[in-house]
């Protein structure tokens, strides 16, 4: 009696040990997945992540629970996910700032490329260089020229953000006096340029204010043109070698099984390319920009290097 019980237990134990690795891949997911959002509930990153999660859970057959862990520009949540079990049940929907901007400036307790695996990129708002509509600056060149002669102030969403660093690089290259004025969020920087308290602002969500004739869009900080304003140049097209590519993507802790990563990449790509998701994002005034995980990793790597250089110039 005793013998058989022990034997069967041993057998069971052995059986469960050997094929567990392959089973985990085939059965994945067999329980709820947590998708961490490094910002507060209700922001655009959170709303779009909740939408992509609710659409993906239908394909995966398991619920995806969105968990907000705001604070410290998203680095708290990134650090938590980087240290989570790499079993495919903890993912993060993250953005440029905690991926390659803040890590280039100081120790944040994780290395984006070593501790996390990018799965895909699905969005990323375009940041524009905007001025008041009656501003004397008609183009990026004019703004830089103004910076050389009189000095120009520009507002951004916060100190040491991607937009600030991109323009700091522009200032170094051109020798223009571009004085940064950090605000507490892009909305307040937009208000400041509308009210004429700063000469320019580097902000997203400018479309309606530009179309209404309150703001003038001089250029975009991204690597590609904003489809809403195809004629407005990127910084590079205007002859400045700086950019702030905006990403919104999903990552998993490093060491997650490649089979699981592939399954997630396929699922999220399918969802993000659907018309339903596109029309949802249009309502939210956010673009859909799909990029495979490998390409996202490359973007992050390039920018980490570029931003480290800029940060060094700034004396950080």
């Amino acid at each position, binding site marked *: 009696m005793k013998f058989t019980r022990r034997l069967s237990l041993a057998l069971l134990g052995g059986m469960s040990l050997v094929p567990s690795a392959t089973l985990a891949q085939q059965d994945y997911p067999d329980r709820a997945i947590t998708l961490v959002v490094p910002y*507060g*509930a*209700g*922001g*655009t990153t*959170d*709303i779009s992540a*909740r939408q992509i999660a*609710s659409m993906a859970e239908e394909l995966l057959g398991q619920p995806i629970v969105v*968990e*907000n*862990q*705001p*604070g*410290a*520009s998203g*680095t*708290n949540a990134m*650090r938590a996910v980087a240290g989570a079990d790499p079993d495919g049940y903890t993912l993060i929907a993250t953005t440029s700032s905690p991926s390659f901007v803040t890590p280039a*400036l*100081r120790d*944040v*307790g994780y290395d984006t490329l070593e501790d996390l695996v990018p799965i895909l990129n699905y969005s990323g708002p375009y940041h524009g260089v905007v001025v008041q509509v009656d501003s004397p600056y008609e183009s990026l060149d004019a703004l830089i020229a103004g910076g050389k002669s009189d*000095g120009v*102030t520009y507002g951004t969403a*916060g*100190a*040491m*953000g991607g937009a*600030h660093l991109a323009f700091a690089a522009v200032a170094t290259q051109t020798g223009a006096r571009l*004085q*940064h*004025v*950090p*605000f*507490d*969020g892009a*909305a*307040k920087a*937009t*208000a*400041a340029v*509308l*009210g*004429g*308290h*700063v000469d320019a602002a580097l902000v997203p*969500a400018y479309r*309606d*204010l530009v*179309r*209404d004739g*309150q703001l003038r869009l001089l250029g975009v900080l991204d690597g590609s043109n904003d489809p809403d304003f195809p004629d407005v140049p990127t910084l590079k097209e205007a002859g400045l070698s700086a950019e702030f590519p905006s990403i919104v993507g999903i990552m998993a802790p490093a060491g997650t099984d490649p089979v699981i990563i592939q399954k997630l990449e396929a699922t999220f790509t399918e969802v993000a390319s659907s018309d339903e998701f596109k029309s*949802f994002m249009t*309502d*939210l*005034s956010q673009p859909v920009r799909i990029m495979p995980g490998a390409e996202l990793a490359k973007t992050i790597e390039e920018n980490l290097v570029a931003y480290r250089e800029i940060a060094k110039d700034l004396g*950080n």
Partner: protein
Amino acid sequence: MLVDAFFELLNLWVLVAALAGIASGIIIGAIPGLGPTMAIALLIPVTFSMEPIPAIILLLGVYQGAIFGGSISAVLLNVPGTPSSAATAIDGFAMARRGEGGRALRIALYASVAGNIFSCLVLMALAQPLARFALDFGPAEMAMLMLFALLVIVLFGGGSKLDALLMVLVGACAGIVGLDPISGTPRFTFGSFAFDNGFQLIPVLIGLFAMSEVLLQAFDRADEVSDAEMPPLKRSVVSLVELWRMRVTLLLSSVIGTFVGILPGIGSTVPAFMSYNLARARSSEAGQFGQGAPEGVAAPEAANNAVTGGALVPTLALGIPGDAVTAVILGAFMLHGLAPGPFLFRDHGLEVYAIFEALLLSSIPTVILGLLFFRVAIHVTRVQPRHLLPAITILAIFGAFSVNNSLFDVWVMLGAGVLGFLFRSSGFPLPPLLIGLILGAPFEQSLRQALLTSGGGFDIFVGSPITIGLVALIAVSLALSLVLGLRKART
């Protein structure tokens, strides 16, 4: 337009949405730590399948309900459910201790409704011109306005000015911890990542007010414990005449709330305290304030509810939200195809006016639901503190954790609780500390932003009509306080 918009509201779902929104808002507001921001964010997905108008009415009902709901726990337990109801607790709880909790709640309710109606009318009539006016407030103007607000808190708070000043400074110092707003580098974080985010308002608030109340009652139980000293519940009718006598207080508080609401980044706590201090300074019975003066309940409640309409002005007319709640509301409008911004009123005028009218009309269900809710809630005052305190402690821990899902915030809450207990038992006032924490960091940021734009010149602080006006106000209030102080010393 207004009539067409009204017809949009003749829909059962609109009524259901308004009732559900307000009721859940009141309950969420009454629980410390759960604020309107989180409630609205979590309800947005629920509204996906709804029509735009009822969906937005539901969410705005939560916003209005939560600001009012915070006053229920403030009055009955001396535990403000939201930061903005901390001012209401001062006289509201004093009234409740006399057995007049029901009356205090009714005054809070009617004042809230008055503030709502006022700010909503302003929103309907003047959204676009006021939004342009708000843009004239740049960093220099904001810095002077916040300096004025801090002065009002210190000079006209009653009690010792030195105590109030010290507490403001303690709060401002707590606000320094975290990332430097201009250079973006960590400061006073002791190398710990947890401190990068600074001390968050909600955990500090819960600690200072809720946890310290628990500690006070636990250590100083003399007059609280026995049944015999439970005050009997008094009649709680508030007559129209009584409200009419407060008309000037209600109007001034509503104006302050609406005006501050329109400006980005100050929130609803500061105008509540400013209105309280103004009402106290104007009152012929200033000595009653703090001892349970009905106007001390009405003033902050009218102001903090009036903020809701004001805050929607730049959010809807420009697409520029002033704080976290309105940022979430902005997202909700967008998802329902009503993108806020310069085109909102042109493209979706009908829906927007229908929503505004619903906000006005929602005063009726707010009063009905509020009165129903009081009948139950008032009995909390008859529960013995020793039965209530464990529940408050659990809610405090839960509330502090839920803000950022962070255990660090729980420790901040407990630390603030001990500090609050020490300050209160040695007679220091807590409200100036709260205001210092709220305004300290933004004041520093605005000051430094202004100096960055002016190239270091201080002339920017007297460089526009608005800043000159504010500097004059600051000078007048300093002079007034000096004169009052001298006159008091002579008599």
